[in-house]
C-alpha cells in the first residue's frame, strides 16, 4: 500500500485556495447582511444601545443617583431634566442611559454564557450516546419549569444582584441552547467528512471542536440573539417585580416599577423607560430574524 502524501507546494496551494474560498464566503455573507433591511435596522438599534451602555458616564447629563428633592417629579423639558425627574428628583434621562448598561450587561453575559455551556452539553450529548439520554432528560425537565418562574425561584434563593440575575438567566437558557446545538450537531455528525476524519484517526476532541462546532455556529448564534432579546425582557420583568437588580441602581424594570406607583401623575416615568425597553427588544428581535434568514435559511 502506498502512502498518500502531499508535497509542501501542493499543501500551500491548497491552503491558499481554502483561504480564498473563505474570503469569498465572508464577502457573500456580508453582502447578504447589508441587503437584508431587517438585520441592518436591528443591528443599528443594538449598536446604539451598546454605545449608550459603554459611554453612559459621558452621555448622561447628570449622576443617575444624585437626588434633588426640590425637583421631585419635574416635568419633561424642565431645565436640566430633558425627560423629567422621579420621586427623588433624579434625572430620568440619566437613569435610562445607565439602565441601558444593565440591560446590555445582562443580555450579553447571559446569552454568551448559555451559548458556551449549551454548546458544550449539546455537542457532547450528540457525540457520546451514553450521556445523551441523561443530559437531554435533564434539559427536558428544566425546560418544563416556566422560565419566569424558574428565574424568580432562583433569584429568591440567591438574593438580588446583577450577577445573580445573569446566573439565573443563564440557567434558564442553557437547556434550549443545548437542545438546539445537539440537533444541529446530529445533522453534521452524519456527514461523510466526519466519518472520513474518524477513519483517519482524528481525536474526538478535535472532531467535536474543530469540525462539528464551527458548523453548528449559525443555528447557535441565531438562538443566542433570541435569548438576548428574551434576557432584556426577563431582566426588566424581574426588576419590575422587585426580585432583579436591587433598587438604587437604575434598571429599566425598576424605573418602571417606580413609575407604576405614580402612573396617574407622572406619565413620563412609564412612557420613556417603556419605549427604551420596547425599542431594545424589537431591535434585537428583528436583528435575530434577519440573522436567521442569512445564516440559517432552512429553519425558516
Amino acid at each position, binding site marked *: 500500500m502506498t502512502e498518500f502524501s502531499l508535497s509542501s507546494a501542493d499543501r500551500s496551494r491548497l491552503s491558499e485556495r481554502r483561504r480564498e474560498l473563505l474570503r469569498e464566503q465572508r464577502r457573500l455573507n456580508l453582502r447578504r447582511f447589508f441587503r437584508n433591511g431587517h438585520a441592518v435596522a436591528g443591528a443599528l438599534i443594538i449598536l446604539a444601545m451598546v454605545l449608550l451602555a459603554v459611554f453612559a458616564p459621558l452621555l448622561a447629563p447628570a449622576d443617575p443617583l444624585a437626588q434633588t428633592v426640590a425637583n421631585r417629579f419635574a416635568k419633561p423639558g424642565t431645565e436640566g431634566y430633558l425627560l423629567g425627574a422621579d420621586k427623588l428628583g433624579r434625572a430620568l434621562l440619566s437613569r435610562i442611559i445607565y439602565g441601558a448598561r444593565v440591560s446590555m450587561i445582562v443580555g450579553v453575559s447571559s446569552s454568551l454564557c448559555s451559548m458556551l455551556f449549551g454548546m458544550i452539553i449539546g455537542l457532547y450529548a450528540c457525540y457520546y450516546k451514553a450521556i445523551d439520554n441523561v443530559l437531554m432528560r435533564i434539559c427536558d425537565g428544566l425546560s418544563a419549569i416556566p422560565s419566569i*418562574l424558574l428565574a424568580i425561584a432562583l433569584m429568591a434563593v440567591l438574593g438580588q444582584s446583577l450577577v445573580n440575575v445573569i446566573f439565573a438567566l443563564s440557567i434558564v437558557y442553557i437547556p434550549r441552547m443545548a437542545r438546539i446545538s445537539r440537533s444541529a450537531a446530529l445533522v453534521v455528525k452524519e456527514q461523510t467528512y466526519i466519518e472520513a476524519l474518524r477513519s483517519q484517526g482524528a481525536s474526538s476532541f478535535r472532531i467535536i471542536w474543530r469540525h462539528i462546532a464551527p458548523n453548528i455556529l449559525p443555528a447557535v448564534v441565531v438562538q443566542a440573539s433570541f435569548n438576548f432579546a428574551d434576557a432584556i425582557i426577563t431582566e426588566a420583568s424581574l426588576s419590575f417585580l422587585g426580585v432583579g437588580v436591587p433598587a438604587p441602581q437604575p434598571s429599566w424594570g425598576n424605573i*418602571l416599577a417606580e413609575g407604576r406607583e405614580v402612573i396617574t401623575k407622572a406619565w413620563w416615568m412609564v412612557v420613556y423607560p417603556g419605549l427604551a425597553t*420596547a425599542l431594545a427588544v424589537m431591535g434585537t428581535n*428583528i436583528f435575530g430574524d434577519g440573522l436567521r434568514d442569512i445564516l440559517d435559511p432552512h429553519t425558516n
Partner: protein
Amino acid sequence: MHKYLLKRLLSLIPVLFVVSLAIFLLIHLVPGDPAAAILGEEASPEQIAALRETLGFNDPLPLQYLRWVGGLFRGDWGTSFFMEGTMLEIIGAHMIPTLQQTLVAVGFATLIGVPLGMLAAIRHGSPLDRIISAFSSVGISLPSFLMGLCLVLLISVKLRWLPSSGYKSIADFGWQTHIRYMLLPGIALGFIEMGLIIRMTRSSMLEILSADYMRMAKAKGVSRRRMFFRHALMNALIGILTVVGLSFISCLGGAIVTETIFNIPGLGKLTLNAVMRRDYEVVQAVVLLVSLMNVLCTLILDLLYALIDPRVRLN
C-alpha cells in the same frame, strides 16, 4: 394509539423526576442555612436548631427528597409559615383568578390572532399583510408588564373606560363586573401570544396555500371561500393548535407579572409575597404545580396530534 399512549406516559417519568429534583434542590442548596433565613436575623441559635429539627433539615438529602415526594403523593405539599390552611387549600384559593386571567388572555390572543393571520396569508404581499406582520412583531416585542402599563395609562387613566386594577369575583359581583376588571390584565397578558399566533397562522397558511393540492383545488374550480376555510385552514389547524396550547402555558407563568400590575390575588401575588417573606415552601409548591400543569398541557397536545395526525403515532 395504545402503544403511543403508553410510550408517551412512560417518557413522563424522567421529566417529572428531574423537575421535582430540580425544585427540591433549588431550595436546599440555598447559600447559608435556610432555617436561619426563614427565622430572620434576630433568631437565637437554639430556635434555628429547633426549626432545623422540625423541618428535618438534619437528615441526609436523599432521605429529605424521598420524604418530600412521598408527601406530594399524599397531598401534603408543605406548610406555609405565614398562612393558614394546608398548601393545597392556599394554592387552590389563589389559582382561580390566575386561571380566569389566563383564559381571557388565550381567548383574546386566539380570537384576534387567528383571523388576522389568515387575512395576512390570503392577502400575501399586500400592504395589509405588511401592516399585520409589523403589528405582530410589535406584539412579540412588548413584554406583558409594559403592555399592561400602556393599557392602564391609555384606557384607565386617560380615557377612563375600564378600572386600572383590582379583582372582582364572579360570585360576589356578577359576570359583567368580573369581565370589566379582567379585560385589561387579560389583554396585557395575551398580547405577546397574539403576536405569535398571527405569525404561526400566517406562515402555516402560506405553506399550505402553496401546496400542490391547493393548485389542484383551484384548477377543479373550488370556490375561494371553500379553498381558504375548508382546505387551507383545516390543515393549518395543527400548527395553530400548538401555539394556542403553548400560549396557555406561557400565560400561566406570565400571569405573575400582570397580577402585580393589576393587583390580582392570584398565584403570582402568592409567589412574590412568599419570595419576599422567604416562605420557601410556598414558592416550591407553586413552581412545582405550574410545572406539572405545563407537563400535562404538553401531554394533552401530543395526544391530540396523535389523534388528528396518524403520522405522529406511527413514527
